[in-house]
Structures are given as C-alpha cells and as structure tokens.
C-alpha cells in the first residue's frame, strides 16, 4: 500500500513534465536550434557543398550592407508589404463590420470570405499568374474595355508586379483577418452602439469612435501576424514569375523578395553563410517592424 502511494506521488510529480516534454524537445531540435544556429553560420564562410570554410566575423554583414541586390530585394519586400497590408486591414475591418450586422445566412457569408484562405499559396501564385498574364490575361482584357488599349506587362515593371502580388496576398488573407476582427467585434457591448445612435452619431463616427478603438488589440495582433508573413513573402512572387529562373523575381529582380534572395544565395549561390546573414537580418527586421506596429497602433487610441 505504501509503495503504491509513493509510486502515485512520484507519478503525479513527473507526469506534467512528461506531458509537456514532446513539444519542448521537438521544438528545441527543429525550431529553436536552427534559428539560433543561423546566427552562428552567418559568422562563417560556409558553403552548401564544402561546408564550413572558416570564421569570418562580421564580414558577411559588411558585405550585405553594400549589396545592391539585397537592398533592392528589401525595398521590394517592404513595398509589397505596405501595398498589401494597408488596404487589406481597412477592407478587413469594414468587412468585419458588415459581417457583424444581422444577416440572413451568416455561416454562408463567412465561408464565402474564408474560401480564398483554403487555397494553397502555390495555387494562388499560379492562378493569379494567369489572371495577370500580359497577352491573354483577364485583367488586361477587362482594362481594354475601359479604354486602356496597351496591355500592361504586369511582370515587367516594378509597380505593376508589386500590385499584382499585393492582390494575391490580399485575396488570400483579407477574409481570414475579417473573421478574426469579427470575433473581437462580437465582444463589443451592443449598448455602446445604442448609446451612440441615441446621441445621433453617424455610422462613420460610430466606426471610428467605437469600432476601431475597441478592435485595437486585435488590429495589433493581426498586423503583427501580417508583418511576420509579409516580411517572409516567398511563394506568391516565385510562382508569379514561373519560368526556369523564377527565384530571380523577374528579369531585373523587380519583384524578388528578401526570402527569395535568401534561398537564391543559399541554394543557387551555395553560400550558406551569407544566406544565414540575410536570414538573421530578416529576423531582426521582423522584430523591429513588429515593435513599430505596436507603437503606431497604440497612438490610435490616444488620438481618440
């Protein structure tokens, strides 16, 4: 009896650790270690095939600072991110507001806005590549009807490729974010709106004075998630470009993102050390952007 008691006691003490350990062990090996080791590799001349060629300190970082290709990729990434995220957040907030009204067939509409998110990113890249094709694409065909006679070479220019890629990102994510904002909107007490209506506040005024401030924490969350995804943007531009050298992101790299540049350096250029430098800088960039987001969005409240 006593032995059994002692066994039960030990079991109760050890069991919690046994329960959480699978997560921590696997994450440590395949998540945390690679991320940290990236910093170590970035301090070396490290080749895909030949391996470690010696410690070089911050040389890779110095080279990166003067690497015009990297800066171009960074400009592309940030440009696409802003071009995609700002309209997306506005649209998602408005859509959330619409979905929050009393509607017939609620689940139907919600499924409708989430449908794009079920489509894989690879499929999105392929489908929109055809939609934005220069000669027979449906967008150019439609634009031809409103008087734009010269078809746009969507992949050919910087602004147009950015726009096409932003449309892909927004198509896949706007509905998803609208649902997350809707969830948070539903926890806003209805009386707030009732009171505002009695005071004669317009729908627009209600939107800015009640909806936006109440949604602020969720907007911060959504923006940070969008930042993490946006800074790592890879698949859409890769498959938009298609072709044998898709990783180059267009003839002059006009839509090559930093993540594409990273992969190009690592696997085409076989420079693991240098590519790790890109990865680590990207990581810091995400942290900085996330922090800026939080600060900027905190301001929204103090304005109101």
């Amino acid at each position, binding site marked *: 009896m006593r032995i059994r008691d002692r066994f039960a006691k030990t079991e109760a003490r050890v069991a919690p650790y046994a*329960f959480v350990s699978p997560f921590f062990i*696997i994450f440590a090996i395949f998540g945390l270690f690679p991320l940290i080791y990236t910093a170590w590799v970035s301090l070396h001349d490290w080749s895909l095939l030949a391996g470690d060629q010696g410690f070089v300190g911050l040389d890779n970082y110095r080279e990166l600072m003067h690497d015009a290709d990297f800066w171009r990729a960074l400009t592309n990434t940030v440009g696409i991110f802003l071009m995609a995220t700002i309209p997306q957040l506005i649209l998602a907030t408005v859509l959330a507001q619409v979905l929050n009204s009393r509607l017939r067939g609620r689940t139907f509409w919600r499924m409708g806005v989430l449908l794009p998110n079920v489509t*894989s990113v690879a499929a999105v890249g*392929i489908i929109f590549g*055809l939609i934005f094709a220069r000669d027979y694409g449906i967008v150019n065909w439609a634009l031809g009807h409103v008087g734009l006679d010269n078809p746009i070479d969507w992949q050919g220019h910087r602004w147009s490729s950015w726009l096409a890629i932003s449309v892909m990102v927004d198509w896949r994510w706007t509905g998803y974010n609208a649902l997350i*904002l809707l969830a948070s909107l539903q926890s806003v007490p209805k009386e707030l709106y009732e009171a505002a209506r009695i005071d004669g506040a317009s729908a627009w005024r209600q939107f800015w004075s009640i909806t936006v401030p109440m949604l602020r924490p969720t907007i911060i969350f959504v923006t940070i998630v969008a930042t993490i995804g946006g800074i790592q943007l890879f698949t859409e531009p890769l498959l938009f470009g298609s072709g*044998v050298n898709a990783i180059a992101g267009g003839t002059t790299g006009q839509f090559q993102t930093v993540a594409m540049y990273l992969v190009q350096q690592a696997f085409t250029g076989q420079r693991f050390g240098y590519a*790790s430098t890109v990865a680590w800088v990207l990581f810091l960039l995400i942290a900085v952007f996330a922090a800026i987001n939080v600060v900027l969005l905190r301001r929204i409240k103090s304005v109101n």
Partner: protein
Amino acid sequence: MKTKNPLLYVGLIATLIFSAGPLYFMLVMASRANDEIVSLPPPLWLGGNLFSNIDRVFANEDVLFGQALLNSLLVATVATVCVVVTSSLAGFAFAKLKFRGRNAMLLFVIGTMMVPVQLGLIPLYMLMTKLGLNGGLESVTLPFIVAGFGVFMMRQFAEQAIPDEMIEAARVDGASTFRIFFSIVFPALRPAAAVLGLLTFMERWNDFLWPFLTLDAEHPTVQVALSRLSSGYYSDQSLIMAGTLVGTLPLVVVFIVFGRQIIGGIMEGGLKA
C-alpha cells in the same frame, strides 16, 4: 430582426464574387484546351476538356502527381495526429496540473507562435542532411509534429472544459495522471481536438517553402508538384490549371463539409490571442 439594408447584401455579393472568382476561373481554364486559354475574349464558361486535362496531369511522368497527392495526404495526416496528441497532452498539463516552471514554460510556448522559425531553414537543411533525411517525406513531417498554437489552443479549451473536481475524484480513486488523461481528459477535449486537427491538416497540405527546398524529385508533395508543373518546362496552361484544380479540390471539399467548425476555430483562436 434581420437587416433590410440591401446595400449590405450587394456589398457581400460583390465580396463573394471577388473571393470565389479566381477559383471559378481556375475551373474554367482547367476545362479548356490550350488554344482556348490564349484566346480573346478569355473563356468565361466551362469547356469540354476537364477530364482529359486531369488525365494528362496524372499521366505526366515528370511530376508524379498521383504520388504527390498520396504524399501530401500522408504527411498532413501524420503531422495532424501528432500535433493533436502532443498539444492535448501539453495543453492539459498547462491548464490543469501544477508544476514548477509552468508559467515560464507556457510563456515560452506563446512566444514560439510569434517567432518566424522558417528563417532557420539553412541549419534545418544541414540538420536533415546530417540525419540523412533530406529529400524524403520525413524531413517535411518531423519539424511539424508539434505546434505552439496547438498547445495554447488546447490549454484554453481544457481550462474551461474540464472541472477540477473531476480530476480530484479520479485521483482519489487511485487513477494515475496518464489514466486520467486517456479516460477523462481526452474525451472531453475532442471538440477542440477536431478543430485543431482540421486547421493543422490544411496548413500542412498547403505548406510550400520548406518542402520546396528539401524534397527530391521522387518525393514531391502536391504543392511542390504544382510548382514543378508551372516551372517553365511546360507552357501547357491547361495542364497546369487542371493540376492546380486537383491539388486545391480536397481542401475545398473539407472546407465545405467542416466550414462551420473551421470558422469557429479561427475566430476563437483570434479572440484568445
């Protein structure tokens, strides 16, 4: 009282056209011959080549599309089962068991949700090479058999779904913690486990970057096969679109059947974050 504002419905219908349009376009193009795809005006209605195009996708010997479908199914299923089990175990422990370091560990779990682990892909590649797993399906499965999001989600659910008295009573009866988990806790967690399973399956099925880098030509997943189809060796658009359709369809079916649960999971996940 339902709203009568017709403008709202007009807006919603426009949104629906925008969100379903590209998928409809994919279906139309998948059902057309190549010369019809490159014609103006672009076809807006279904053609008669759908099944012959799909046949051609499966007959193509370079991309192994049938194999890719099976591979994706296998990888996504294994990852899903593992994520559900490991997340339920950890989620239960964080919600209902007391142990030293619990709060710090939970904070760490939440932190992992915000860290872009994708950026560790170079050491991950080196690690997989060392383990001899690069190129095979294990390399795209192993890193994803746990998920911080899953642990957090199951913890939130376990917290309110399982009364403490139930666990106490089982302990008094002499049940071990493992016994309690399997006979009391896991059955109670099933609704959340189902949602987590759906979300995980969709995420794994659609995963691209890492599989694209590590998998060899003999072991493609659907997404990798799609990128190979469209990689320029073929300019066969109807083949590419038919492949995209076949690769997308399974999830669309899952979505139509379980849409309500999936939406519930996403909305709750956002609310708790």
